[in-house]
């Protein structure tokens, strides 16, 4: 369960989120909104990458301000651009990175890396340089590198924005099949169509909150075709 209590946030003098109070218990939550509406800031608050200027964010009872490190162990984060997220030179090394960092022993790291390579269809690419992967493969690696650490919640910040149709569908399937609670910020309305709940952001506030059909219709009505 992710809870926000009276959350506001500012960048300098500019307020980007205004007095949000929400409980997110659904397995798949989508977030839509225009550029600059506060979605990405909202996403970063959920795993403690940002702490709110005012108010409190709790994940399974853990306060992101006081227990940020513990929160980040529970909450994985997938960025829009996998080139930023992949920090090691090869596929296998990047998968091992998070586990090594969590103090797992070598045998366990090897076992989990092997399993992840097989599960995500990356087995042939173990020694492949990360910078030579295709966009879809990079995003797949970025997601696999988060999931290998077994988080209980995963936040996605526009995970399909840079992908072609085939890879968008592949990532959508992967998200659909995940057991964890996922919060997905996206402009890809198809991706969110069968989610349990969708939030619509506008100028730092949630202006619609509910089932995808109604919320997506509200969002589309905010931006009528020319």
């Amino acid at each position, binding site marked *: 369960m992710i809870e926000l209590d009276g959350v506001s946030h500012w960048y300098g003098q500019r307020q980007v989120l205004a007095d949000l109070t929400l409980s997110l218990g659904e397995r798949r939550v989508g977030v839509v909104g225009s550029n600059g509406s506060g979605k990405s800031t909202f996403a970063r608050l959920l795993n403690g990458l940002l702490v709110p200027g005012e108010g409190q964010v709790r994940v399974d009872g853990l306060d992101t301000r006081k227990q940020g490190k513990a929160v980040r162990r529970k909450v994985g*984060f997938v*960025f829009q651009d996998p080139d930023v997220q992949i920090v090691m030179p090869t596929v296998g090394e990047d998968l091992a990175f998070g586990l090594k*960092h969590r103090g797992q022993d070598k045998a366990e790291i090897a076992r989990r890396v092997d399993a992840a390579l097989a599960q995500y269809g990356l087995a042939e690419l173990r020694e492949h340089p990360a910078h030579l992967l295709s966009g879809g493969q990079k995003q797949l690696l970025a997601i696999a590198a988060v999931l290998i650490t077994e988080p209980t919640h995963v936040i996605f910040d526009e995970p399909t924005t840079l992908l072609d149709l085939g890879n968008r569908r592949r990532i959508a399937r992967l998200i659909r099949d995940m057991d964890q609670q996922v919060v997905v910020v996206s402009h890809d309305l198809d991706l969110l169509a069968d989610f349990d709940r969708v939030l619509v952001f506008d100028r730092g506030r949630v202006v619609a909150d509910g089932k995808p059909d109604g919320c997506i219709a509200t969002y589309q009505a905010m931006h009528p075709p020319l």
Partner: protein
Amino acid sequence: MLSLHHEARTPVHAVPAGLKLLVLFVVGTGSFFVRSIPVLGGALVAVAGCYALARIPWRMAVRQWLVVLPFVAVIFVVQGLLVDWGSAVLVAERIVVLVALAALVTLTTRTAAMVAAVERLLGPLRRLGVRPERVGLVVAMTIRFVPVLKEQADQVRAAQRARGVEYSARFLTPLLVKTLRLADGLGEALEARGVDEDDSRL
């Protein structure tokens, strides 16, 4: 393209990463005390022999050297005009030997082995406050991000060409902005992946 590991089973690949780094360090330092063109020329031939022994495809080898060729050419000319042409040859030889040897180490060593070797070599400095794991992470991330930076530089150049500017030093400003953004995002990503400032392992 920056060199990365080239898989093969050869005597050069089999040399432990720590020993390769040590040789690189010794040759790197030693080359500054050598003032003989034939000796440095011999070192160059020896390094080329190691490439053959490591069965590095010649195209891949040439690609490593081509990257530094413009820099070597500029340094050679400047040194030749300002000092003398003998010194210019010495400096050019020294740079080529070092770059070729460093590229050979990268091509024949897995990053994980290199990082482990760096961490091991720096282990004794832990008492002085050095954190070898952090240095190892920096080494790995350098190898990872040099190609990314090159891609960004190519993008900026392509954008300038598309607007009719062939060569302009002004390409450095957008590149710097992009690099700083990348660094910002990277810091955030490391934090998201559990690397905290106060982490005792780093």
